[in-house]
């Protein structure tokens, strides 16, 4: 039994987990479950990063894994939980546009992403190059989720999940970005969620609802 090959396959497994979780987010109506799914996605990302770090011997990847763990598995979920508590939307259920149709579009996106990543992946020498397509698919799926959601909190989660996909793409294709860039992004995400949190409260104050369709009314008539 080849431990090295097995670890490589585990990275693939993590990648696929990310993809399935991205799909699960698209199909999920409950805001609370969405946050759980997002936490799980972060966890899968941490495991994948640690595995890549172990296989390539790039020590700085351990740091990025640690940052991800702290940020995406602990800090942001806690923040999100507090937000939905304060906004009283913990048990909210969204009405969604036809889920199977959305998922069919998702499948098309996956094919597109796989197709797109194919030539790039063959250039890369990284250990997990096969997963680049999956990472790209995760990004696109999260984007799709942001498009089809009508409420603010799921949109923020979609945004964060997209960042997960980007991070994974960086890990998979190039064994991670330079440390300084990663720290910068981590900080950006943190600030981003704080600002978005503030916005959510503001929207709520203004319209008594988190439905961002109300923002359509803000344009000049």
């Amino acid at each position, binding site marked *: 039994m080849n431990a090295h090959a097995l670890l490589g396959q585990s990275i*693939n497994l993590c990648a*696929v987990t990310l*993809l399935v979780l991205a799909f699960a987010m698209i199909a999920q109506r409950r805001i609370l479950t969405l946050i759980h799914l997002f936490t799980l996605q972060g966890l899968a990302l941490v495991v994948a990063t640690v595995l890549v770090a172990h296989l390539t011997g790039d020590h700085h990847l351990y740091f990025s894994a640690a940052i991800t763990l702290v940020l995406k598995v602990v800090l942001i979920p806690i923040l999100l939980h507090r937000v939905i508590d304060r906004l009283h939307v913990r048990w909210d259920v969204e009405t969604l546009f036809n889920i*199977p149709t959305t998922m069919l579009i998702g499948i098309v996106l*996956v094919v597109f992403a*796989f197709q797109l990543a194919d030539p790039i992946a063959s250039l890369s020498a990284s250990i997990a190059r096969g997963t680049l397509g*999956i990472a790209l698919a995760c990004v696109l799926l999260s984007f799709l989720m942001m498009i089809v959601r009508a409420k603010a909190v799921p949109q923020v989660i979609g945004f964060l999940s997209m960042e997960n996909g980007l991070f994974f793409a960086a890990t998979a294709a190039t064994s991670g970005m330079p440390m300084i860039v990663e720290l910068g992004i981590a900080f950006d995400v943190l600030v981003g969620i704080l600002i978005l949190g503030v916005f959510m409260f503001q929207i709520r104050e203004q319209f008594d609802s988190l439905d961002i369709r109300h923002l359509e009314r803000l344009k000049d008539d």
Partner: protein
Amino acid sequence: MVSLGGVLAQLLEIVLALLLAPLLSGWVNQWRAWLQGRQAPGLLQPFRVLHKLFVKESVVAESASPLFRLAPYAIFGCMALACAIAPTLATDLPLGPAADAIALVGLFALARVFISLAAMDIGTAFGTLGARREMMIGFLAEPALLMVLFAASLISRSTSLARIVEALAGQDFAIHPSLAVAGVAFTMVSLAENARVPVDNPSTHLELTMIHEALILEYSGRHLALIEWAASLKLFAYSSIGLALFVPWGIAAGAAPLAILLAIPVLVAKLAVGGMLLALIETINAKMRLFRVPEFLATAFLLAVIALLVHVLLGA
């Protein structure tokens, strides 16, 4: 080509399936009761129920056609064959080459069509309602199951279930991400196909929700016994397929008697764990509204398709 050992293994498998299937249902029911804090019926309760039903006389509606009386036997035959094809103890089975994974799906479909037609035969409101709902579940679950089996076939380059098991269990241990996704899809499909909680609840007769019970409402006596037995055989067959695809270790590769005998306790242990997990899933989930069922199954279907795509991308 067909060895004596193979024939014996085949017979042993069928007999074991017939005996273990009601036990498995009893086991799941026991665990369900325990998890829900109720006192559980005995493990042998399904057998007692079957015996009771066999002893009673069959009451058949006046308007029933011969199709109605034929259907329970046909369904029972289909399910027994399904159990015989799925490799539970050994992979060298004489009936194995007769039907591969695709034919197995066809077999389930055949049983489904028969039970739906039988339900429509009497011409009651509930019967047709059940038939419609059953076919609705079927047309989404069937392709999903087929895609799950395809994911495994692509890995082992064969649609023969025995070859799939040999390929997955025989080679070096490897993680197949596509199979992991397919596993999720398979779980969802099995829940729907076996009338389990998020989709159907076999312990109620509520017209808003019932599917399986609406189908068999007009059956009684030995006909009902056969259908109930066939239902537990179906659960057994699905469990066997699931075990063969995702936990294939411990199934005898040839027809060596010792290996087959050793496979029995392994099988029982795997089934016991599987049954517990099934009871757990049924306990922690609430039953879905009927409108949500197509969504649930479409998700399973698309997951299985993703499994195929992942296989194409990663080659594993």
